[in-house]
């Protein structure tokens, strides 16, 4: 049985102009000890999926679907019970570590607070655990006395990781954890996350718009476009034989220092307005291999090769050229 099961998740944000269908029928599973990446452009719904799992959606609501963690049905639980799941079983590392940390407490005190909220333990035990966590994220324990502004971006992100690990969660959701960091710091934090994930047997959902980063960190990759999953498969498959035209474009628009191509090609057009998403395939206005039927018929995510799912009429064969 998978650790986490997301089934037909639908999340809307409410605006004056109407509801934005930010996640529209998203289904996937995460196995125990597996790391799965979610990629896509800004606004594709990848963060919405993470926030839906954490029940932290603001200005909107999950309007449909199920999220199961083992036996627990997360969306149906009373909020008070869910608070025990959050942090103790699922924790979140967000992009903006500076915004997530309290500027007036030392980082050590904040890690201790995270431990004490969830664990019944003495101050001394909590501090011991905090130091152990800091060692795990390769931080000098003397830094426990530092305030967030005294630390570099990479160090702050390590504090966030330490806090996320404080209660031995089963699943860690990392939302663009290295995006705001420099290249060298990015490698350091990324390698740290990969090592911890393997060593502690964690499940990891890693969200990033950079495919190259996901390629290093994840066993499987989900590609999202305009609120839907368009492709899902093993990392190597996604990189070597991407099937969906959008995935192919996403790969060719990525900067690759080792490639002969100096300026990568861009994807013409822009994602659809999710207030009124077009019927049919959401990518067709930008798709170079579209068929007439793509405008009308919405492709389903189907198994195209072992473990490799794709939502494209052209590939899944449910289109008849007319």
């Amino acid at each position, binding site marked *: 049985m998978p650790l986490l099961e997301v089934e037909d998740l639908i999340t809307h944000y409410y605006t004056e102009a109407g509801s934005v269908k930010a996640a529209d029928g998203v289904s996937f599973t995460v196995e125990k000890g597996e790391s799965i990446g979610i990629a896509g452009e800004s606004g594709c719904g990848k963060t919405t999926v993470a926030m839906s799992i954490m029940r932290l959606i603001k200005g909107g609501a999950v309007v449909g679907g199920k999220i199961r963690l083992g036996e627990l049905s997360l969306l149906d639980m009373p909020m008070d019970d869910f608070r025990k799941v959050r942090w103790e079983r699922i924790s979140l590392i967000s992009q903006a570590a500076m915004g997530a940390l309290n500027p007036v407490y030392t980082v050590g005190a904040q890690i201790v607070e995270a431990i004490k909220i969830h664990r019944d333990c003495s101050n001394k035990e909590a501090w011991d655990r905090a130091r152990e966590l800091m060692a795990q994220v390769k931080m000098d324990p003397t830094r426990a006395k530092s305030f967030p502004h005294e630390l570099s971006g990479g160090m702050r992100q390590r504090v966030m990781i330490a806090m996320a690990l404080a209660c031995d969660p089963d699943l860690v959701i990392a939302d663009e954890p290295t995006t705001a960091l420099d290249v060298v710091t990015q490698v*350091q934090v990324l390698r740290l996350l990969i090592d911890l994930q393997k060593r502690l047997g964690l499940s990891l959902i890693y969200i990033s718009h950079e495919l190259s980063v996901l390629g290093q960190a994840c066993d499987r990759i989900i590609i999202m476009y305009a609120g839907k999953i368009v492709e899902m498969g093993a990392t190597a498959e996604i990189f070597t034989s991407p099937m969906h035209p959008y995935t192919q474009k996403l790969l060719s628009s990525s900067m690759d220092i080792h490639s002969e191509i100096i300026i990568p090609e861009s994807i013409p057009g822009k994602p659809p307005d999710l207030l009124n998403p077009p019927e049919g395939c959401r990518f067709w206005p930008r798709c170079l291999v579209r068929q007439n039927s793509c405008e009308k018929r919405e492709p389903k995510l189907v198994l195209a090769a072992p473990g490799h799912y794709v939502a494209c009429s052209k590939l899944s064969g449910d289109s008849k050229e007319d």
Partner: protein
Amino acid sequence: MEDAYFKVENLVKYFALKKRGQFFGRRIHVHAVDDITFNVEKGKTYGVVGESGCGKTTLARLIMHLEKATSGKMLFKGEDITKYNRSQMKALRLKMQMIFQDPFGALNPVRSILNIIAEPIRVHSLYQGSKEEERDKVREMLEKVGLPITEEMLQKRPNELSGGERQRVGIARALILGPEFIVADEPVSMLDASIRADIISLIMKLKAENDLTYFFITHEFGVARAICDRIAVMYSGKLVEVANALQIVDHPTHPYTQLLIDAIPPLIPDPKWGTNIDIEGEVPYFTEPPPGCRFHLRCPYIMDICKESEPILKEVGSKGHFVACHLR
């Protein structure tokens, strides 16, 4: 090098730091930019690559006179602009403009796109205040940067635009006075890959169309390779390597440049990637730089001399490739 277009000589910027618990006593300074010299050739793009804290943004701000230099000189077309006062700088901004990293932070959220793009015209009292000419000019700029030329666009607020569109607005605003020298501070680093490629193409197109010269700051080597003719790598206030773009990417010579390039994740996953990178090191802020090479604390090839004497930039191997390292 006698008629360099933009020249920086021995530029230094120290920031005074107040240390906690030391009310009296010696002033401590952060050496943000420490004795930097370089030339930007007309019509070329000179890039500076480095991690946050290396001083690259301070360097850009010094050039734009948003910070005052501690010492050193800056010459624009042979004229010393280092000591320019406000009104001289205002006049110079007709020729020199800046594009910022965060298009949202740089744009006033309550003003319309029309007002944002037209502001430099108003500041410089051009077109005798003719609203009609001003509007025409803004429309022309919208077209140049690839935004729709509609009344709807002119009346939008920054929060109604996507990241890529905002950066286009930032570029339109920087170019509306018809400058020839553009200082760009990480203009594409907050954008998605596909939009980034678009903006890079736009920056290149505008350069060719308007005969621009760029001074370009980035932390990404891929972006620098795409845009720059020459690339300088900056570490802790110093330039450690300078060469032509393709040369430096294909043959990085300073251990720090090698580290920066090794740290870029390859597009095709490689399980060995990153395993040779030291997990602890960070760019230090030096209030008292250590003797010797500033990189020696992190350098995998450290020798005794590195702790004692500071290496200077010298030409190695191919022409125009400068490295400050005792190994070479």
